[in-house]
């Protein structure tokens, strides 16, 4: 009987592996943030892509179930005395199936956009604004890694 149960479990697992919609799915995302950057003092008041990325990480914590993600990298900026023009979150996601995985991707995408929006709101800039001719807002971009 025990052997039969194990055999059935094996067959189920093989079937699940051949059917992506029901398979556990994992993958990585690269979440980029782009802002204008500038001198830390001379351009003070501009948005920071790194600050936006950090805000997004906190939103990811709130939006995604524990164990469904792992942040493997958070980086950005080029020097201590510059407002960061770039930010990057690298994240690995694990879901029970493809649909759940896409839900995680959507949640990360929303968190990234909301993190950028929070940084823009804190510094009082909106899409279309310019600073010295360059886009004044921080923007987020999500793609598979």
């Amino acid at each position, binding site marked *: 009987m025990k052997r039969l149960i194990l055999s059935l479990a094996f067959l189920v697992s093989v079937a699940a592996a051949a059917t992506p919609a029901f398979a556990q799915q994992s993958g990585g995302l690269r979440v980029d943030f782009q802002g204008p950057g500038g001198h830390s003092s001379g351009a003070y008041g501009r948005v920071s892509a790194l600050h936006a990325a950090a805000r997004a990480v906190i939103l990811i914590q709130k939006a995604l179930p524990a164990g469904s993600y792992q942040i493997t990298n958070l980086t950005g900026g*080029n020097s201590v005395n510059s407002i*960061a023009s770039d930010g990057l979150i690298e994240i690995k996601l694990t879901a029970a199936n493809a649909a759940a995985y896409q839900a995680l991707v959507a949640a990360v995408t929303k968190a990234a956009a909301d993190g950028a929006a929070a940084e823009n709101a804190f510094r009082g800039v909106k899409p279309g604004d310019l600073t010295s001719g360059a886009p004044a807002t921080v923007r987020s971009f999500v793609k598979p890694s």
Partner: protein
Amino acid sequence: MPATIPPPVAAAAEKIANDPQIAALLKDQSTDAAAKARWNQFLELVRIPSPSRQENLKAAEIHRRLVAEWGFSPSEVMTRADGVIEASDTNIVDGLPVYNACVVIKGSYSGRADAVNYKGQFPKVLVEGHIDVVNPEELPKTGDPSIRIKLQPYAQPVVATPEELAAIPDELSFDARGRVVENDKYATASKVFANAKDAEANGGVRIYVPGYGDMMPSTSNAFVLAAAMKKHNIKPVYDIWICGTAGEEGKGNLAGMKQLYGFDQKAGTGSNPLNFVANFGLEGGGTVNFLGSYRFEMKFKAPLPRGGGATGPSAPEAMAAAIARISDVKTPSELRDGAPRTTYTVGRASCEPPPAGRTVAPSCSLEVDMRSPRKETLDEIRNNIEPMFQAGASAENARYGRKDGSPEGITLELMWYGLRPAFVADNVDNVAVHAGLQSGIQLGVLTSPMVGAGSGSLNDNVPANTGIPTYQFTLASSAAGAGGHAFWEWGTRGAPATEVARMHRVLTAALIVSGFHAADGTVVPPAVGPLGKRTREVAR
């Protein structure tokens, strides 16, 4: 705040500014050929990457040109390729060599029988501009390190991403010797304009290159001035050192100035081992107050992963928690009317890559910058931000029920601490300010001896806090520019005549302080005594 210019300084300014030797130098620099040579030199130097504390490539090229092209003998080059200045007591700063590039215009003073020195060092005047730039972040490990100089018509919008910048098709070309190729792109980039409106209307281009605004045009022209002084045999009384300095940007911690002034960050004292009597910076206009700053690099270290793939506190998320808290800080000047302008940013963050086969980042580090012209407000922002490092770690530990400070929790480590002491000039009656103001009055740039109340965070923090009088000029001429410290830093060429006028002023001011052998055989005496100030005796 007004300064009171002593009559001898006013007389010296008039004498020097109108001296035939100075006039000959300026006439020489006013030709089209000289303007072109200055422009080409700038383009050729600015493309050499020079991250803070990795300025060796640019310093080496300046050293090479000083001897091979600018007319100096090796003995007049005061800095070595390995970063050593033999008479300094501070040749290693923050554990690294210092890649300044300095040349001396020899004065007559040391030949006098009654010459006074400080431990073998005769008096000197320093004229300096920094050679480091915030982009790129580090020297490339392989391949041609040179920066591509991109050209974009004004009709197109300023680039929004590094990818857009890289995709611009037009760029300047350089030959194998690093000389700019004078092709059609060069001709376009070399057009001179009065301002951005003029450039936009008449075919100007944005010239994208890190350092265009901060501050290679001015530093490059300092060496043009040095070579011109040598060529025209301009003879000061005290020595004049002209330096391209290292470590002004990023984590440079003012390393170049600390070497020159023997400044000990921990003690907050400078030994002034080379015996400078006055300092002239080339990064701004008339600044005499200097912002203080605190800078921290904090590392968030993750606990060793438990077996079986169990999750635990994450270094990236702990750091994110800290940065997110800092991101919501309002500074004193944002909270209270009348408070000194105070700023901060988390300028850089990075994480150690997970070891092969793992997904846990062992550690992450952030770098934060805080600035204010007054110690009180600088301390206020520090006292607000500094606890947020631990708050981030604690929040991440709490998510997993881990105790702060335990081996199973995120731990914090201070990796680097930077300090630029604030300096507020309570009295502006000193020789550098007098010479700086009077040179401007003499040449019609200023109408009164007034010093502005503004502050900058500049190399001058070090001499100012060592007791050395200092004043700021610029030798650059740009029609327009923006994007300083960002990937889209750009400028457009301004009038060469402005550069020559600014050289006239800097030369006049430096010679007022150093003293000057005039063409008529008379000597304008130095405006200050031969012993520079210091806040610590030199260890030599």
